[in-house]
């Protein structure tokens, strides 16, 4: 229930931001009666209303007595830990995104796979290293050589 109230508050704050931004949308001389900002403004207001309804409903239910908390999946039994672990994956993926152009697809994907193995506590052995390199090569073969998609060569541009 606390989770639903938090969701309501986030939605309410976002709706205020969205309506503010929607009000800045310029109006075209060729536009219609509704205008480019008309629909976004309406959506923002409806979201605000739905958020208030969600919060009010939850508060009303809380006043009336305790509720059984909804069951969550194993990962969300410890949301703080999940956020941290997921943050690590996002960081690895973000570094990959930043590196893929200049480092090249093959080395950066091999590093992505190796980093993901290590991050999930798979010990780094010659076998996991081979899996990462072979996996990267297999994906390159599939997309670049087979499907004809031009994946970045980066540092290996002289070689491939």
């Amino acid at each position, binding site marked *: 229930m606390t989770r639903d109230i938090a969701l309501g508050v986030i939605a309410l704050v976002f709706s205020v931001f969205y309506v503010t931004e929607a009000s800045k949308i310029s109006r075209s001389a*060729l536009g219609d009666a509704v205008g480019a900002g008309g629909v976004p403004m309406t959506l923002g207001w409806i979201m605000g209303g739905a958020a208030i309804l969600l919060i009010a409903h939850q508060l009303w239910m809380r006043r009336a007595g305790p509720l059984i908390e909804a069951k969550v999946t194993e990962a969300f039994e410890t949301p703080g830990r999940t956020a941290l672990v997921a943050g690590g994956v996002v960081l690895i993926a973000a570094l990959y995104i930043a590196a893929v152009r200049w480092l090249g697809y093959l080395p950066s994907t091999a590093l*992505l796979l190796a980093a993901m193995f290590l991050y999930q506590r798979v010990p780094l052995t010659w076998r996991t290293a081979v899996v990462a390199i072979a*996996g990267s090569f297999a994906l390159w073969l599939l997309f670049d050589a087979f499907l004809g998609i031009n994946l970045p060569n980066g540092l290996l541009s002289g070689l491939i």
Partner: protein
Amino acid sequence: MDALLQSFGLLTSTLIVPMAILGMVWGIFGGALPGISPSITMALLLPFTYTLDPIPAIVLLAATYVGAEYGGSVPAILIRTPGTNAAAATLIDGYEMKKQGKAGEALGISLYASTIGNFAGILCLILFTAPLSQLALQFRPTTYFALGLLGLSVIATVSEGLLTKGVLAALIGLMIATVGTDPVSGVARFTYGSADLLSGVPIILVMVGLFAVSEVLEQVATKSQWDAVKGNASRLKFPNWAMQKRLWLSNLIGSGIGIFCGIMPGAGGTVASFMAYNEAKRFSRHKEEFGKGSPEGVAAPEAANNADAGVGLIPLLSFGIPASNSTAILLGGFLIHGLIPGPVLFDRDPTILYGLFSGLIVASIALIPAAYLTLSVCVWLVNRPKPYLMAFILALVLTGAFSINNSVFDLGIVLAAGVFGLGMRYFGLPMLPVILGLVLGYMIEANYRRSLVISGGDHTIFLEDPIAVVFLALSVVFLGISLVQEFRTRRTDRPAPPAT
């Protein structure tokens, strides 16, 4: 009928047959992996479809959908972990059969019932799609606006969790759809000076991020590992004639319920398979075997979720409105090739849809040999350590997303959508309304504003269209009923007061 017969000619001249088989096999693998739903399996394939012609691309995705529905039963039977939500009912008796040393029989029954369910679903799809799309040809901008609202309100109300959450999710999708140039005057909205956002947020990337990346993030954070398949389970035994005779009623019940649930938007394969399980038990001559390894208990849910998969395509192909996550991904496959499913597509280029039908028939025929040939690979895949699979899925998703436009910016969108999806999972927000809002946003806004341009800004134009009035009234009824039900249910959710 002639067009359908002509479409069989496509089987020899295009890549339909190989794509149907490939999609079927990929679907079985994806369905067999716990936590990887049919929609994720399809989402992983989306980038590949860019390089294909429209018909093979659509067939590839649709065959994946069909294959995943069967594949979900493999880990349900072997390791008591359903590969898909819809296979949860199969687990009850399938795993009991496995414990009795009848894993091969259970897998064979699942395959047999899945094939029957598939054909029942495809038959309904072929029979009903064309007449319904003919009806949809009468639609005007006012009707399309009302239809979009109806689709959104139905999905928001039948989605898991609170109605307000379903509505919030639909609004999020609609809001994402407003990014880019506005459909009437061409004014840029919420682009913040980014040229990449002028054409809007690509739906495909959002789908891949929401479904696949968020799943990887959640799975990596989940401590428990999947169970391994022990012993020799890789022998599939197709039911003999006596068993087939015993299963006819449960297959009929399962297929019937699957068809019914497929027509009802949002009901989905999970509801269908549990309903079928209950009804098969009610009408069975061997009620006492249910829960203890009943063959009917495996057949009925499998027939149901496979029939549901075929029929679930009807709203998408007739009206352009996806009724499930998987059909939303299939819609993405159409959009990639500049095709908008619905009555106009059926009218102008029926070959694409008839090609899809014939591809689905091929896929259903291919299911039996594919299931035999892939079982040992499925068992091998299920036995792989989860960290390896998650790492490869992430690499596959990012490579696929990059390959769409050769753009690093797109990877950022996929990653952001994945993080957003994880947040949605935490708050219990359903995914489908977001996708539907995103897909229908343009249709709703463009037709709303076009209607008002026609009427000179007069909103009563929506009341002059009888079909639109019916759709709008149904939207209000759906929302009203759900709101009342929500308050009633939540009142009864309380724990019983302590005894005094």
